[in-house]
């Protein structure tokens, strides 16, 4: 866990020095109380020379009098307090500076790792979990460094400083004081051990409550449709009741702990004060030492109360840093070869040779898939959900590496190429449209932030997005995403298509990405894409036969294998998945399809069919 500190060695060293200096100044400032009090005591017992309040100043400044001694010691005290104050400020400042610098490097590291770690990592964890790790877990580690580590140092320094001085002034009294420390320590430990299961139970109860809440909201249609609102309320109430009980258990524990710990502190202090008073009375100790004793014990006991907090923070930080390192230590799923070359220019011919792949060992998603697509063709991948269509496209972009077999783009094995050049060559429109909270223009120009507006507009036009963009209040500068304009599913898909168009790829992958777009627009988008993708390759992943039928080649993927391949007409003649689905899918989109587009597209496809080279 402490390896987090390595990049901030300098900051840590400076902070440590400031801590030592600050504690030394604190002890010194408190110890300087002693001479002042000694003078007061001297005056109180001697009652030697009464002064009138009017001559206080003269009394304080006449050399070689008790008044002067008091004055001098007060000035020293003042200087010490000012220095101490400056150090306290420096301590707060350094502690934040050091911990924030550490957080900076940690966050940078995790951010970059998350960007490059490969998608298999993302399949294991929900995005919520990952965000939590990078934010909450990191906060826990920082919390430990600030509260835990720095407080520990503080405690040790305080103990050494004050106790050393106590021992020096009065070993007997220091001995008595030391007696209370084990009692104190074990009480805190007792409560820490006792509270852990209570906290864990609280966390579990809270998770249960949140899960009920989440599911109730996510499944709101079901709740309403079956009129189970009352039932849901009852369930939620029961879960809240449990949580409340656990919270009250925690409150009860704290209710016991706080007075116990403070009681011990108070009892110790008063005992020592009483003892000290007796010592003073016997003349073994002077009042100044007694006051210093009081102050010192107070400081030591206050600091020791933090042990509880530290052990809590430590427990949390250990768990958090483990989870954090799980991300940082995760190796690249698709490492780039040391001698990787950029992809040579080409038209986007793709060849899969005997490819095997599974997200988890033992669960094959892709089994022995081979096919070859010449540059410039339109390929449709069809098949039931979960059959492996999307996985094939992910393998092509090297989001994952196959277990066996090889994939080539324009005759080059993608594992011999730089990742950047492979991904530059492929434009993706994903199944789930993801747009960033940014302007329309910057979302479209995501792959090339310096793209001129004319190119952005051209891409939008091809994606049939220009019309609705022009109707947005801010047009191309309109913010979208969480805090911006809300777009319909079809509009979002069109922006994603524009983004891929601007990327200017030699291979375009459309993963079920026209589902929310009405048929007329779809036809227009297809026409536009066709023009710009002339001589390049398009992969069309779809479950709609009506979309697939326009492709040059259709690959039917079932259970990770290619079950059928051919053109629409060929596949309809063969008995199999394609025909049965084609017959069951009375696709809605046909309902308002203008004849001209359908026929034009359909005719064109037919004329270009039959170029799939079977292996």
């Amino acid at each position: 866990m402490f390896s987090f500190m390595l990049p901030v060695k300098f900051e840590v060293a400076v902070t440590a020095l400031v801590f030592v200096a600050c504690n030394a100044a604190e002890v010194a400032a408190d110890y300087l109380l002693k001479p002042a009090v000694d003078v007061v005591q001297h005056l109180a017992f001697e009652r030697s020379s009464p002064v009138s309040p009017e001559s206080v100043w003269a009394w304080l400044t006449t050399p070689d009098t008790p008044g002067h001694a008091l004055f001098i010691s007060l000035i020293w005290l003042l200087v010490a307090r000012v220095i101490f104050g400056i150090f306290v400020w420096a301590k707060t400042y350094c502690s934040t500076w050091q911990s924030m610098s550490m957080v900076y490097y940690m966050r940078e590291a995790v951010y970059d790792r998350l960007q490059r770690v490969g998608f298999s990592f993302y399949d294991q964890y929900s995005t919520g979990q990952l965000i939590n790790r990078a934010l909450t877990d990191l906060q826990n580690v920082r919390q430990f460094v600030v509260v835990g580590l720095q407080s520990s140092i503080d405690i040790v320094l305080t103990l050494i400083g004050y106790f050393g001085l106590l021992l020096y002034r009065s070993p007997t009294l220091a001995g008595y004081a030391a007696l209370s420390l084990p009692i104190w320590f074990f009480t805190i430990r007792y409560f820490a051990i006792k509270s852990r299961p209570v906290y864990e139970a609280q966390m579990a109860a809270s998770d249960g409550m949140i899960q009920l809440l989440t599911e109730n909201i996510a499944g709101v249609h079901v709740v309403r449709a079956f009129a189970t609102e009352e039932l849901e309320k009852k369930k939620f109430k029961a879960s809240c009741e449990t949580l409340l009980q656990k919270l009250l258990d925690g409150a009860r524990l704290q209710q016991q702990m706080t007075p116990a710990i403070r009681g011990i502190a108070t009892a110790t202090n008063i005992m020592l004060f009483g003892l000290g008073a007796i010592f003073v009375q016997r003349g073994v100790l002077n009042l100044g030492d007694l006051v210093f004793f009081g102050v010192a014990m107070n400081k030591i006991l206050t600091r020791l109360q933090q042990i509880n907090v530290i052990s809590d923070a430590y427990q949390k930080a250990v768990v958090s840093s483990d989870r954090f390192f799980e991300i940082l230590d995760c190796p690249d799923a698709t490492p780039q070869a040391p001698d990787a070359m950029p992809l040579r220019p080409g038209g986007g011919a793709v060849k899969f040779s005997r490819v095997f792949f599974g997200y988890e060992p033992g669960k094959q998603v892709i089994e022995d898939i081979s096919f070859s697509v010449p540059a410039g063709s339109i390929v449709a991948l069809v098949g039931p959900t979960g059959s492996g269509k999307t996985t094939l496209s992910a393998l092509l972009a090297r989001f994952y590496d196959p277990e066996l077999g090889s994939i080539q783009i324009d005759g080059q094995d993608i594992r011999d190429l730089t990742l950047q050049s492979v991904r530059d060559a492929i434009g993706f429109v994903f199944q789930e449209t993801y747009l960033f909270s940014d302007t329309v223009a910057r979302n479209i120009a995501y792959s090339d932030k310096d793209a001129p507006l004319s190119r952005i507009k051209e891409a939008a036009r091809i994606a049939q997005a220009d019309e609705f963009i022009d109707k947005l209040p801010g047009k191309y500068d309109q913010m979208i995403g969480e805090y911006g304009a809300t777009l319909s599913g079809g509009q979002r898909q069109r922006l994603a298509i524009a983004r891929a168009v601007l990327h200017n790829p030699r291979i375009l992958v459309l993963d079920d990405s026209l589902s929310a777009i009405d048929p007329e627009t779809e036809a227009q988008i297809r026409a536009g894409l066709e023009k710009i993708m002339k001589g390049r390759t398009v992969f069309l992943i779809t479950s709609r036969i009506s979309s697939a039928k326009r492709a040059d080649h259709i690959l039917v993927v079932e259970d990770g294998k290619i079950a059928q391949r051919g053109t629409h007409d060929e596949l309809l003649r063969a008995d199999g998945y394609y025909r049965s689905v084609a017959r069951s899918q009375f696709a809605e989109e046909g309902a308002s399809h203008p004849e001209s587009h359908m026929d034009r597209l359909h005719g064109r496809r037919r004329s270009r069919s039959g170029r799939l080279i079977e292996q």
Partner: protein
Amino acid sequence: MATYQDDDNEYSPINAKMILRLMSWLKPYRWLYVLGALSGVVSILLELITPEFMRRIADEALPNRDPGEIIRLSLYWGGAMLLSLLFDAIQVGATRRCGEKVINDFRLAIFAQLQRLSMSFYDRTKLGRIITRGTSDMDALREPVVSGVNTVAFSALMMVGAAAMIYHTDWRLFLAIAWLAPVMTYCNHIYREKIGAQYQIARAGYSSVAANLAENVVGVRVVNAFNRQDENLEKFNELQVQNTRNNVEVANISGIYQPFLEFIKFIGQVIILAYGGALVMSGKLTAGQVIKVFFYWDFYMRPTINMGNFYNVLMAAMASCERIFGLIDLIPDLVDRPGAKPLPRITGHVVFDHVTFGYNADRPVLHDLSLEIPAGKTYALVGATGSGKSSTVSLLARFYEFQNGRILVDGQDIRDATVESLHKQMGLVLQSNYLFTGTILDNIRYARPDSSDEDVYAAAKSLGLHETFVSLADGYHTTVGERGSSVSLGLRQLICFTRVLVANPSIFLLDEATSSIDTVTEMKVQTALEKLVQGRTTIIVAHRLSTIVKADCIVVLEHGKIIEKGTHSELVAAKGHYANLYERFVAQTS
């Protein structure tokens, strides 16, 4: 109609009206709360008398050189302190109990409100935002509710008490340090303003770091596909640098303030010791009295130092409070009409009578739609995306309020019936096929939790699905839902169908899944569906030809209007839109 402000203000100014409203939630627990408040007062009063024992030790016991007296006074002192701690513990316990109970009440109120709010609320509001109301907003409220008012009141009591005691002990010493109080109040004011503003800046900065990170994680596929890693990291680090700077600035301000207060305290101590010493010298005061004032000064300063950051906690709580009350005050757009009656058991005769509806009133999705569905019949809705099929189903389920026309069930306007009684007789399966975390058994009897295992088995058997469920790894006890995501789409749909059969509604609404499932499961779905529609009015948003052909009536929708209606053979014979569609479909698929 109330609009729901879904902003994410981190801090809000302290608002007395809001605090009063918050306090009104304490009403059910007022006696416990009063007990806590009284214990707190007793605890403070006990603490306030302890310096007197110190004075007596210094003034009486020490000069008399009487160890017995010292021990006796120390014991009194310790006794008072321990009693004070005890009362403090009672105070903390009582207020905390009240606080947790109030928070619990809030949670239940929010949940109850969520059950009342209409679908349009859920369309507008993100899931994460709603959940925040029940989680982190509650946490933000906890501290002020649990200890807020008390912290302020007790601090004030402590300060007034300590000041009074100083005055009572010696008015000259009182005057000598009294001027520090206004100085401190003024500095406190400046500090609060500065740190408050800086905290807000820091929070906002952190939010953008978090938002950027979250966006990148969620959109990681896009990031990778478009090679944006380096630029993104650069942008992220810019945000981080700003975040670090903001936090260091907060540390800078709070780092100055704390030692400043300590310094003020010290100045007071010096004045007390120096001037007090002089007064002792002149015989106007005893050493014990000076010690006593010294301790009261400490009592006075302690709450001041602790209060510094409480202000921020309070501002954060105010923001949460605003959001929570905003949600609770929201009036659902769709509530039972006054005098709405529960529907009797219906046969399922459905009439849409000139219904016009738009999610946004200016842009109607359904135009003057009229449709009669006799009880027990199956109607298939066919049309392009956005033609109004799903809206038709949603309106019958009364998820939205329509602008014009009537919808009748068994001759009764659904708006005159209670929503609950309508829903009780209605079964719904959506494309998402939502399942709750739990076993298959739990999910099937979701609507009828009192039904026995045998009822569930019987339902599954009658749909021909019993074997399918039994053959799973844990049979009916297989866990499904969010955590059991390995359940295939087809199986989810089969579970949903069985769930509807157990609920046994008179009207069944189905939004058929568009994505294709494997052939074997597809067969099961079709067989189960055929059995499920028997004897109940069924409306299907249909995508599959097999479903459409079997329907008693096919309704073709275009742009929110019915353009054709009839059985498959009627429509094909009519040579209209549907026939055209079908012909082309046949031509392409054979």
